[in-house]
C-alpha cells in the first residue's frame, strides 16, 4: 500500500480526504486504483495528470515504481510556455 496525496480540487471525490492509501506498484497502478475507488475522479485522471514521487515530477511515466514509503502526489498536468 502507498499513501497518495490528492490536490484539493479532487478531494470533492474522496469525501474531503487529502491523503488516501492505494495498492499500487507504479504510477499507472496508482491512477488505476484511484479511478476504481473514486469513479467520479476518473475523467480528471484520464484527462491527464502529473504526479510526483519523493519530490520528482512525472508527466508521462506509467511504469515508474512507487514504494510503500514513497511520497506520491497527484497534481494537475504541468504545462508550460
Amino acid at each position, binding site marked *: 500500500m502507498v499513501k497518495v496525496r490528492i490536490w484539493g480540487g479532487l478531494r470533492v471525490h474522496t469525501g474531503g480526504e*487529502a491523503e488516501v492509501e492505494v495498492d499500487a506498484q507504479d504510477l499507472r497502478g496508482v491512477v488505476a486504483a484511484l479511478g476504481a475507488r473514486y469513479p467520479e475522479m476518473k475523467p480528471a485522471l484520464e484527462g491527464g495528470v502529473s504526479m510526483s514521487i519523493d519530490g*520528482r515530477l512525472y*508527466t508521462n*511515466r506509467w511504469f515508474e515504481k512507487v514504494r510503500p514509503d514513497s511520497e506520491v502526489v497527484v497534481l494537475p498536468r504541468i504545462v*508550460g510556455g
Partner: protein
Amino acid sequence: MPKDIATRTFKQVGTRPLRPDGIEKVTGRARFGADFSLPGMLVGKILRSPHAHARILRIDTSAAAALPGVKAIVTAKDFPEADDGLHDIRMNVMAREKALYDGHAVAAVAAVSAAVAREALRLIRVDYEVLPHVTDVDEAMKPTAPILHPHMVTAHESPEAKRPTNVAGKYEFGHGDPEAGFRKADHVVARTFKVEAAHQGYIEPHACVANITSDGQGDLWCCTQGHFMVRAISAGLNGMDLSKLRVTASEIGGGFGGKTTVYIEPVAVALSRKAGKPVKIVMTRDEVFRATGPTHSASIDVKIGATKDGRITGAFAELRYQGGAFPGSLADMGAMAAFACYDLENVRSIGWDVVTNRPKLAAYRAPSAPAVCFAVESVIDELARKMGMDPIDFRLKNAAREGTLSSYGPTYQAIGLEATLRALKAHPHYKAPLKPGQGRGVACGFWFNFGGQTCTSLNIGLDGTVALSVGTPDIGGSRASMCLMAAEELGIPYDKVRCIVADTASLGYNDVTDGSRVTFSSGLATITAARNAIKVMCARAAAIWGIPEDAVEWVDGHARPTGPNAGNFPPLSLADIAAQSHQTGGPIAGHCEVTAEGAGVSFGAHLADVEVDRETGAVKVLRYTVAQDAGKAVHPAYVEGQYQGGAVQGIGWALNEEYVYGKDGRLQNPGFLDYRIPVCSDLPMIDTLILEIPNPGHPYGVRGVGETPIVPPMATIANAIASATGVRMTHVPMSPPRVLKALSEA
C-alpha cells in the same frame, strides 16, 4: 545524482561559441514562416467575427464562390465534430454555432491573389444575432453574467454547484490551517490585485503554407514551437492519417509559448485540399492580437500573516483567471505557483478557471505564475516594510529549501532559491546608493519546468563530422546547445557537429518546445544518442583490433584499448572509425527515444531600481539584475539571453502592455502602436547572475531556464515603485495613468 555532475570537468559545455544559425539570421537568409513559397500557390485569408459574442444564424458564401479567382472556401462545416479530444480547438479554429470573441474565425477563402481573397471575404454574408458579452473575469463569475457555453459546469466543485456557469473549474492546494496561522500573526496584510492580459508579442506573425495533393497526402510548412503538435491537430481536424501529413518547422521569430497551439494551419490544409493547390496564410498583426492567445487576465486576493520576528504563520490566495472563450486559464498552475517559494505551515491557494468573450489563452513563459507572483510578492514586500526587515532577509527566513513541503504538495529535492537570494544580496547592485525619487524592489519567483517526449538521431558521417537531428524547434539557441553537448560527449570540436530541426516524417514524436524543456530533454536525448553511437564505435574498434568490446573505452574522441589483456593498439579517432565504417558494419548512428522526466523546478530572484516621474506617472527602470539557478549553463550566453529576455518581457507587462477592450467587447489596441512593448532604448542592460545547482535529473545537471525569468519582474517593479513613492500599486500594468492616479489618491 549522476556521477557525471560530480566528477566531470567539462571541456565544451559552458563555453560560448557562435550560434550555428547566426549568419543566416543576420544576413536575412533564414527562412521564417512567411518565406516559404510554392509554384501555383494561392493566398488564404480568414473572415473574422466583428462581435464579441454572437449567434451565427447563416453563412452565405455563394457570392464569394462566384468571384473569379476564388478557388476554395471553408467554414465550420468543413471541420466536422468528432470524439477526438479536439472539441475546443476545432471551435476556436472556426466558429460553429456562436462567435465567442472579437476576431473569432468564421470562414476562410483561397484565391489567386490577396486582392481577390480580400474581395471574397467582403462578399461572404454572415447573419449574426448579437448576444450580451462579458470580458472581465469578475463580471463573468457573477450569476447574472452572459453564459458562453450553456452546458458548462464547474469541474472539481461539489455536485450541488452543477449549474450553467462561466466558471470552468476550481483548483485548491495547500496544507495546515491559514486562519489559525493568521491568529498567531503579529502583522497581517491583505490586498486585492488586478492583472490585465498581455500578448506574447512575438515579432513574426503566424504563417504557413499547406500543399495537399489529390492522393490525400501533403506537406505543411509553418512557424511553430511544435510541428508534431501541428501535425496531430491539423490532421485530426481534417480527418487525415498522421503519416499522410508531413510538417516542417520554419525558423521562428519568437514564440514564448504563443506558438504552442494552432490557428491557421488546419485551415490552410482544408483550403489546399479543397482547391487542389498550395495555400499560404499569413496573419496580419491585427489578426495576431485579436485572434491568437494572449495571457489570462486576473483578479487575485492575497492575505499573509507573520510574527514580528519575520516568520510567516499563514498564507492564503484566491485567484480568478479568465483564459478567453474556452476553459484552460491555467488557474491551477497559478494556484500551485502562488506560494511555491516559501516554507509554510499554514497555506491555501484557490484558483478559479473562468471563460469570457476574449481569444483563447495561449501559454506565455511560465503561464499563470507572473500574475500571482505580482500579488504574493507585493504582500511579502509590504509585510517586510511593516516589520522594518530587509526584504531579502524576510524572504530568506521563510524560503523553501531541500526538504520543504511545498505549498502545492511535493517535498522539494535540492533547489536553488536560497542561493539566488543570497547571490542577489551579495551583488553590488543591492548596496548601490539611490537618489531621491528612486526606489529599489526585489521579488522571487518559481516555475515547474518539465521534460516530455523526445526523439533524437545522431549520424556519424564518413568524414568524421556529425549530423544531429532533433524534433524540437529552436526558439532560444538550442541548436548551439545541442551541438555543444554532442561535441562534449563525443570528444570532437563543436564545429564538427551540425544540428537540424527535422520534420515530422524523419523522427518519432517530439512534444512541443515549451516548459523550458528543450535544453533539458533534447539535451538529455542528444547525450544518450551520442553515448549509443560511442557504443557502436567502440564495438567497431574492438572488431578492428580483434579484442572484446568491453576492452575498449572512449576517451577524448578516441577509442582506446583498456584493461590488462586488451593489447597495445594505437587509439582510433572518431574520424578513423567513421572512415572505415562502410567496411566494418555500415553506417554509425546513435538514437534516443525517451519521455524525459526529472526536469527539476526553478527559482529566480530579481532586483530593480526605478525612478518615478510624479508629474506624468512614468516609471523608468534604472538598473535591473536577475539571479537564477540554471543547474548547468550549457551555453552561458544563451542562458543570460533567456534571463534578460524574460525580464524585459515582464517589465513590459509591468509597465505598459495590456489588452484594452471597449464597451462593445472589441479589442481597442490590436497593433504595436497602441500596444507598447519595451524597446532597447527604454531599458538598461539587464545584469545576470547564473547559479549552477545541478539538477539530479539530468546527466549534466541542466535545468530549464526559459520561463522563470518572466515571473518576478511585475512584483519587482511594483516593490521598487513602493520604495520610491510609498504607494502600493495593485493593478498591472502600472502605466503612467494608473501610477498618476495612485499617487494622487495616496
